[in-house]
């Protein structure tokens, strides 16, 4: 899988209350969640986000509440993948489970600036910063996680394994 988009940059410790405030947790509608993505952190997000854009953040992205509405809202807002220095563990699982690609790279998280044009190749484990002409590598996921990602998330993966 390859993605290309503009980086939208955030700080360390972005929590899931900021990604999707609790007042929007009274719905299970993906597109509604997508419309309110990042409203606890960046009220201008909905205006600036373009399909394919890439969220880049510091350490501990997605900490706090286990609400899966957070990665769901990011995906529904059109974000192609999230790059962070590190991820909080529940968010990490949730993102993989719903098929939102995430990449852990401290170097990329530090070097990429807001607005940089970024290209990601999941298979090769490479991130290209077109604006800055820099490359960053990241480690591949363990095999079984990659299978979940390739299936498009945990549910399609389970359905596939049941039928296999």
């Amino acid at each position: 899988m390859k993605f290309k988009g503009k980086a939208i940059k955030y700080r360390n410790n972005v929590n899931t209350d900021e990604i999707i405030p609790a007042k929007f947790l009274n719905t299970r509608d993906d597109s509604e969640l997508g419309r309110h993505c990042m409203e606890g952190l960046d009220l201008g997000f909905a205006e600036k986000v373009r399909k394919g854009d890439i969220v880049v953040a510091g350490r501990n992205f997605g900490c706090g509440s286990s609400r899966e509405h957070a990665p769901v809202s990011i995906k529904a807002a059109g974000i192609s993948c999230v790059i962070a220095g590190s991820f909080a563990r529940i968010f990490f699982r949730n993102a993989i489970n719903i098929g939102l690609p995430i990449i852990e790279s401290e170097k990329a998280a530090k070097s990429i600036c807001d607005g940089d044009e970024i290209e990601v190749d999941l298979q090769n484990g490479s991130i290209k910063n077109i604006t800055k002409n820099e490359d960053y590598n990241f480690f591949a996921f363990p095999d079984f996680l990659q299978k979940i990602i390739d299936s498009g998330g945990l549910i399609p993966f389970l359905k596939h394994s049941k039928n296999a």
Partner: protein
Amino acid sequence: MRQTITQKILAKHSGKKEVQAGEFIDANVDIALGNDITSPLAIKQFREIGQPKVFDRNKVVIVQDHFTPNKDIKSAEQCKFVREFAHEQKLKNFFDCGSVGIEHVLLPEQGIVGPGQVVIGADSHTCTYGALGAFSTGVGSTDLAAVWSRGKIWLKVPESIKFVYKGRRKKWVYGKDLILYTIGKIGVDGANYKSMEFTGDTIETLPMPERLTMANMAIEAGGKNGIVEPDGITLKYIKSRFRGKPELYRSDTDALYSDVVEIDVSRMDPQVSLPHLPENSKPVSEVKNTHIDQVVIGSCTNGHLEDLEIAARVLKGRKVHPYVRLLIFPATPAIYLQAVKKGYVEIFIKAGGIVNPPTCGPCLGGHLGILTKGEKCIATTNRNFVGRMGDLESEVYLSNPAVAAASAIKGKISYPEEV
């Protein structure tokens, strides 16, 4: 050998003699929990799998505690959606209507969770049950749906950090202060992906509600689970409650830890975590005189009967500051009833407090106590993130129930001795 309690529980549940940190396992799950916020997404995903029945109707637990009593039409619809699923699946432990309590206080109280279990919950504070000597961790809705289907979950065996608390606690210092101090010391990602094992002579005498408070907040340091080895206090607590057969595990004396953190409790003061992260903990003396508009006493962290008793002791015969809203949330119906019987509710109401039904309510900015721009609240809850309790420009300070009650009387953050 050389296994921690967490490793031993995970090994047992994955049919292995022992497991190593970093190893991926497929573990059998004893209890799979959801609430009215996370269950709707889980049900949607479960339907997608196309399996008619959950793996075991006795092991799937749902508590409608977050936005109940229904805060708006959409929440009512979500609860109805969950209710229909729970009835259709004939879930044995479905808490709705008058049986609702805050999940992480309710499950230990009702004896649904106990020592040696693997508990998976679509709520980040599921780590609470580690206080009983269980492996217990939070996941999202899709993971929960998969557990409802398979009765199993993939897990990476965590490394463990051993926290050793030593010394006698000063008056007004509780488990809440120990954990706020600890998060301040290691940071909000100081235990990311790891197990936090709470040990030491201070823990050995720490009452169960305070152990539950500590394990509850392991997630606030990024922890996968918080855990306390079961002992006499555990056995006494579960004796008339736990419906299962307790399995008691202890860490080997030569078990491997990624880090050992020693904390001297004897000189610790009550702690307050400043906005907007739980790691901003300071002794109460350093934040005294911060004016507040609201006080919340309750939540899965500090809504136990013992927490209400502490608050009642401070508030007895006194009045809440006229400019302050004091909101109290007994965590379960049984706690509410006891608080009535023991006279705490009378003390709260006479002091000018407002006693609410058991619900998560304002803790996550749901309802029953939302803050507007510029308002400040001191709360016995677990998170003080930006906008957590309402407007993005409101502030939440975290504390124990004694500090919260004293602050309600003075109208500013105060030390309990001051009232």
